[in-house]
């Protein structure tokens, strides 16, 4: 059964220096509050895994938490570039960032393999692109039944996966709905998991399209209302598109970014 913890305790206990960490949420339900707590607690040498690094990893990369990034699309959706990500790749600021680069289909299948307890996944993907030349974790494989050449990618097994959801009950059963992305697979692929939720309730009322993660499959649950902002939680909030647009300017300059981080992350304590 999942433990109910504070966000600060959950991050302190479950996210460690040097870990392979996946913060998932496909545009929707991105665990920003947990990301900020990781920055506040000064985690270092992380391998950050995420299909779409988004603004959340731009912040973690700019804050110096990451050594390596495993990803498939590193932009600010609908806006443009992630400037902290670009600065790290192009100018090693604030430190060099190793990349392991995939396609969405490849990343999704890597989580599926991890959740399934398999060493790798098979897909029709990457063929003819330059990605396999730079990512050694993309290999051809021959189908034993048809002889067809397909592509294999290894399972992702994060040390810890962090996701945000709408609700949990007191037993730590987690309920999410709307765009649920790859969160279920990312949680089940991980050795440990932390789920932040909009609210903890006595009973989970069924919602159409819901995904439920049983409490016994989750390590810890922390209440973090608004914890997806500027991403959103369907039924609780809408995506703050203005923030995403404004981030372009904030993140473009190192000093402006640092000032933003100081004011909006470091000086803002986690809910105890």
């Amino acid at each position, binding site marked *: 059964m999942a433990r109910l913890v504070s966000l600060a305790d959950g991050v302190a206990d479950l996210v460690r220096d040097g870990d392979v960490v996946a913060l998932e949420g*496909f*545009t*929707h339900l991105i665990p920003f509050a947990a990301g900020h707590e990781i920055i506040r607690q000064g985690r270092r040498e992380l391998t950050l895994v995420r*299909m*779409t690094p988004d603004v959340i990893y731009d912040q973690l990369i700019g804050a110096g938490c990451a050594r390596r990034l495993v*990803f*498939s*699309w*590193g*932009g600010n*959706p*609908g*806006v443009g*570039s*992630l400037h902290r*990500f*670009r600065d790290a*790749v*192009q100018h090693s600021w604030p430190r060099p960032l190793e990349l392991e*680069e*995939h*396609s*969405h*289909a490849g990343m*999704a*299948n890597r*989580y*599926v393999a991890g959740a399934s307890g398999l060493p790798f996944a098979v*897909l*029709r*993907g*990457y*063929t*003819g*692109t*330059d*990605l396999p030349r*730079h990512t050694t974790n993309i290999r051809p494989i021959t189908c034993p039944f048809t002889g*067809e*050449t397909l592509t294999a990618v290894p399972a992702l097994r994060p040390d810890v996966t962090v996701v945000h959801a709408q609700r949990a009950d007191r037993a730590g059963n987690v309920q999410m709905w*709307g*765009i*649920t*992305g*790859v969160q*279920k*697979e990312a949680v089940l692929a991980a050795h440990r998991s932390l789920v932040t939720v909009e609210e903890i309730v006595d009973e989970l009322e069924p919602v159409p*399209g819901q*995904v439920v993660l049983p409490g016994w499959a989750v390590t810890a649950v922390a209440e973090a209302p608004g914890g997806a902002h500027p991403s*959103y939680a*369907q039924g609780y909030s*809408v*995506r*703050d*598109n*203005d923030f*995403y*647009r404004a981030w372009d300017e904030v993140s473009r300059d190192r000093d402006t970014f640092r000032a933003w981080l100081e004011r909006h992350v470091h000086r803002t304590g986690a809910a105890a």
Partner: protein
Amino acid sequence: MSARSEPGLRAPQSRTNGDPVSEENALAAWTADEMMTVAAARQLRDGAACFVGIGLPSTAANLARVTHAPNLVLIYESGCLGAKPDRLPLSIGDGVLADTADAVVSVPEVFNYWLQPGRIDVGFLGAAQLDRYGNINTTVVGDDYAAPKVRLPGAGGAPEIAASCGEVVVIVRQNLRTFTERVDFVTSVGYGSGPGDRERLGLRGGGPRLVITDLGVLEPDPVTRELTLTSLHPGVTREQARAATGWDLAVAERLSTGAPPTTHELTVLRALEATKHGSPR
């Protein structure tokens, strides 16, 4: 690049004299980007299933859906199948897409069950660089992957969209930076290095059928697979198109001129664009 994003190929009409702007005057003020979006929207057949990237492809697909193709099935990689947004989403995962979709599925499902088996008719993609065989780069600019001149967002869903959709439509502004002899990085395969490459690679989708730009329309030659200019937007010359292309651009013998945007297309497009500003409430 005379046409790019300038307010109209003819001089925009003054609106300061108090006269009502006539329909013709409103038409005179369409931009090259509007022409490109309208031209792309017209290419989407009603009832087709279309895998839509964010930005220009999403705008064009939504324009098609509210004009001539009400049964166009919009598929977003966030898992929204059959989304019918009443405003333009900023991201592929805005709530309006999930709220209006026929079904919302997981990301592994959208790629494995829907895209991979070839269920999707049209893949609608943008590009940072495009070469004469329709190969697309959205990864890095520069020769050295480890030390790129410009780090771009990367692949996202594009490699498999380009491989598996029945056909691909590319929408991209035409200029020397984008239209390059060779892309610095092949993120998504068009026709590789020429005829037979898609078949050799085992790519099951048909590849790029059209490239729609702010200057005109390019189509692959049926034999050589080389992108060929087949249509110009009104007011654009073939010399402009060739000058905006980083290789010796082939021009079709029968080069046509596309129809300008209709008042209806422009009105709908501008109403859609207006919904992009500010956060949804």
